[in-house]
Each structure stands twice: as C-alpha cells, then as structure tokens.
C-alpha cells in the first residue's frame, strides 16, 4: 500500500512535467492540438545543421573515448589492478570540476601559443570533442569496467593466448564481442551527454544542439517543448537499445562462468 503510494508520487513527479511539456508541444497551432511545433522545428534551417553537428561530435567523442578507455580498462584489469583506484579517481574528475570552470580553464590554456586551438571554428571543434572525451570518462570507464568484471578477462585472455592469438586478435575477437553491451552502454550514455551539452559548447561558440535549444527558448514558445520531447525520445531510444541488447548477452555470460 505504502510502496504503491510512493510509486504513484514518484511517477507523477516524472510524468506530470513530461506530459505537460508534450501537451504544450502539441499546441503550436491556435485552438488545435497537432504537430505544428514539430513541423516548424524540423523546418528551421538552423536545426538540422546543429543536430548533425552534435551527432558528428558525439560519434567522434565515442570513438576517441573507446580508443582510450577500453585498452586502459583492459590493461588495468589484466595487469595493473593496483592502479584501479587511481584510474577511477582520474575518470571521476569531470564530476568534480564544474563545466563552467572547465571551459574557462580550457579557453585560457588553449587561447595562446604554443597551444592555440581556439583560433578557428574547426580547431575549436576539435578541442570541444577532446573536452567531451574527458567528460565521457566517468560513464565510459564505468560501463567498460563493469563489462570486463562480468567476464573472466584473465582466463579468456590466457585461453586465447595459448591457442596462438596475439593482442589484436584477443581484443577484437574475444574481449570486445563479450563486452559489447558495456561498450554500447558507455557509447550511448556519451551520446546522450554530448547531444544535450550546453555550457561548454556555448562558451566555445559552437553551433551545436545545446546552444540551439537555449536560443530557441528565448525566441519561440512551443518549439522548445517539441525540441525537449525529441531530445527525450532520443535518450530513451538509446536506453531501450542498451536494454534490448543487454538481455541476451548477460544470460550468455552468466552461464559460462
């Protein structure tokens, strides 16, 4: 009874604002409930460039982050378990440093020679992706680390070695396929963060989705709600994919231990 009540209150806490936002997004046309706000949003010439730029940034961030985090987490699990607390601490730093502090630090550091990276839009974009990679560490490292802990990394590695496999084969044919849910989960969390990130992109004068949304709220009434619903749908689609792929894989790993 009490737990049911708590569930109801929590559900309302989430669902009422969401429902209200969705309802507001349908009121783009006077006295009619419809998808006018969505139509206007997608028709806006600034929306798709911002959206595609954010997606490209997100994909680049994911690739770079995977390239750094997976070998690090694998090596820490396999050979340097004593370093785990240090690596965990480093990956948690983005949680400790506020985004506003981070962005001003970056601008100060990279606005003068020899590391002048804010001179052009494209070099700033590269810098932004590097910052996003650092921001993704807490999510990516934790996801990958959990995935590696779920399998017997050491024994699988040794089994593959005894069969003649080199490090590349071990990583790509044995380890990656068995932690693909973890990789996907880290990737999609990173995707969700990069897609909605505002502070750093705004101060680095990037035309991504975050600044676009902030700008939208200043000039439009219904489109920001439509944009919020679209962003929410993307995030939930990402979570749904993680859950769907994770179901079969966890069963497979649990039964071979």
């Amino acid at each position, binding site marked *: 009874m009490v737990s049911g009540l708590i569930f109801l209150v929590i559900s309302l806490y989430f669902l009422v604002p969401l429902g209200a936002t969705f309802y507001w997004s349908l009121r783009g046309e006077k006295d009619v409930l419809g998808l006018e706000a969505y139509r206007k949003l997608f028709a806006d010439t600034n929306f798709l460039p911002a959206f595609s730029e954010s997606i490209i940034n997100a994909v680049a961030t994911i690739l770079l982050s995977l390239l750094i985090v997976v070998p690090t987490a694998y090596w820490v699990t396999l050979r340097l378990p004593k370093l785990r607390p240090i690596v965990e601490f480093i990956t948690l730093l983005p949680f400790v440093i506020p985004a506003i502090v981070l962005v001003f630090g970056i601008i100060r550091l990279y606005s003068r020679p020899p590391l002048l990276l804010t001179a052009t839009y494209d070099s700033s974009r590269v810098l932004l992706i590097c910052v996003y990679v650092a921001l993704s560490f807490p999510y990516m490292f934790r996801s990958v680390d959990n995935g590696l802990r779920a399998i017997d990394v050491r024994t699988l590695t040794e*089994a593959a*070695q*005894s*069969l*003649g496999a*080199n490090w590349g084969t071990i990583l790509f044919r044995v380890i990656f396929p068995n932690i693909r849910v973890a990789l996907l989960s880290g990737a999609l969390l990173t995707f969700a963060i990069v897609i909605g990130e505002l502070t750093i992109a705004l101060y680095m004068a990037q035309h991504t989705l975050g600044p676009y949304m902030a700008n939208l709220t200043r000039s439009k009434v219904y489109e920001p709600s439509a944009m919020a619903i679209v962003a929410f749908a993307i995030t939930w689609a990402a979570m749904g994919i993680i859950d769907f792929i994770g179901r079969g894989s966890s069963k497979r790993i*649990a039964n*071979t231990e």
Partner: protein
Amino acid sequence: MPYLSISHVTKQFGDAVVVDDFNLDIEKGEFVSFLGPSGCGKTTTLRMVAGFEIPTSGKIMLDGADITDKAPNQRNVGMIFQSYALFPNMTVAQNIGFGLRVRKEPEATIKQRVEEMVSLINLEKHANKYPYQLSGGQQQRVSLARALAIHPQVLLLDEPLSALDAKIRISLRSEIRAIQKKLGITAIFVTHDQEEALSISDRIVVMNTGVMEQVGTPFEIYNFPKTRFVANFVGSLNTADAEVVDPANGLVSMDGVQFESAEGTEGRKKGDKVKIAIRPERLSFAADQKKANVVDATIENITFLGSVVRIQVKIGNTKFNMDTFNNPFLELPALGSKEQVTCSKEAVLVLDE
C-alpha cells in the same frame, strides 16, 4: 633426450619463493600430475610451461627447443582451465576452430578438424550451441577439444575437474586419459585431489611449499612415500610417535607396543624419535591372517562408509583407523571388545619425526 625438460626452475614473486629449484624430465606421451595442497607451486610451475609466468631462473626445453622466455602464443601448448574459459560469444564449433583460424589454416582444414574433435568428445549434436547451453562437463569437453585441435606439443590441464560434480568428474577424467592415450599426447595435469592424480597418471610429482617432495608412479607414491608430507598427503594414514628400539632389525616401539618395519630404520640409532605410519587398509584382525606385527587393540568405533567399513581401534594409547571391505556377511566385533590386530612389516613406514 627428454621431450619436456624443466631444469632448476625457480620462481619468485617479490621475496616469496613460490617454486624452488624444480627439476623434471617428461617423456613424449607421458601423463604427469602435479599434486599438492593450495599454494604448493604446482599451478605456477604449469603456468611457466604455458608461458604465462617467466621463471626467475632455470630453463624449460620442449622437444629440444628452449621455450623459457617465449610468449604463450608462440609455444605450441594447449591449456585447459578450471573455469573452462570457453569464449561465450562463439559456438562449440567456433570455439574449437578458434586456434586454427588464428593460425590462418584453410577453411576446409578447419571444418574437417572441428568435425574430428567434436566427434572425439561425442558432442556432434551440440556443435552449433553456445557454451551457456551446455552443462559444465560438456563445456570442459569442448575446452579439451579446443586445446587438442591445434595439435599441441604438450597438453596442460589446470585443475580441469574441480568445478564439476563427483560423478562427472570420474567419468571425465577417464575420458581425458583415454583421449590422451589415443592421441599419444604429452600431458601435465595439476590437481590437489590425490584420487584423481593416482587414477589418471603415469607419474606423480608431489609438491609442498614450492619444493618437489617426491616423483614416482602412483604405486610408488602411495605405497612407498619418501617423506612424511607425501605419506600424510596421499591416502589416509595412521601416524604415531615412536622410538627406534633395534635399528638392525627394524624394530620401533610405540607406547610400549613394538612394531617391525621392513625399511626406514637404516641410518637411525637406538632411541631416535620417529613417527610410524600405517595405512588403514593394511591393518586387519589377526584371526584373518598372521603377519609380522600382532598387537592387542580395543574396538573404539565402527563407521560404515559404503564399500568400506572403518573400524577405529586403540593400540596402546593411540587410535588407529582400520579399513576392511564391506560384504553382507561381514562379522564385526562389538564395541569395547579386545581383539588382536596385525599388519605386515612392509606396511609399517618409519618417518622422521
């Protein structure tokens, strides 16, 4: 020249010496077991042969080639792990074919070899299943097939039966031995289970705290243990404090009761403190058969163990276990009754105290 030679191999982790001056020559086709308690260095020695650990000193030669410092993927050794270590993302056939694919064998060769191996382990119907769809015993058989598929020069088995239940363990160990004999492959088997080692091996290396205690056939290890550790570790053993009475005639005294031993008093002198050790199955009632040692005993306890009945007797002030085969017509003495117990002089082992 031995096929596999482990010479003066020592392994240290920091200050701790885990394996100390290990020396062993293994002939081609031989099945050797490393037997010992946890932490005795048996797995570390095996891992040095596999290449997962590099010896601090010493040399490992395989078929005339020095493999001491070779990477694991450059040695042609097959390894079987306690936890099966099958790749969860691959089917049985893909697991078995993995090593051949790594070696870039032609697809037709891989297919043929996988079929051979699947047939060898009698899992033809399961070739397309994933490891999670198999029982523990089946998974370990796949692991065996995967290790054998690459035609390894040596097969290394690291406690492969420990995770299985008793019945599967017994049937699988027979299967492993039969396959090893059929293929004539050289094998090293690590176990802490003496029954496993005794039943499967050509030779056993008993290890303790990084040191080889004794190397011998199962028969030698069980019947003629050279050290007190081996005597205690392999099989059940009654031990008691004793004193040498007549070294020339192998006489020792325990609580005033004299025992004659066939060996073990050489080099000792009268009055030396020793331990005598007698296996439970070597003791019997004197009425059954007359042997060198006939001593008075009191029946303390009788335990039915299925195929064996264990009778606890008190000789002097020391309790001994005596095992006798069960049969439906076995007449057992009453508890507390006085009986005479006997054993041959070969059954009495004299060990250092």
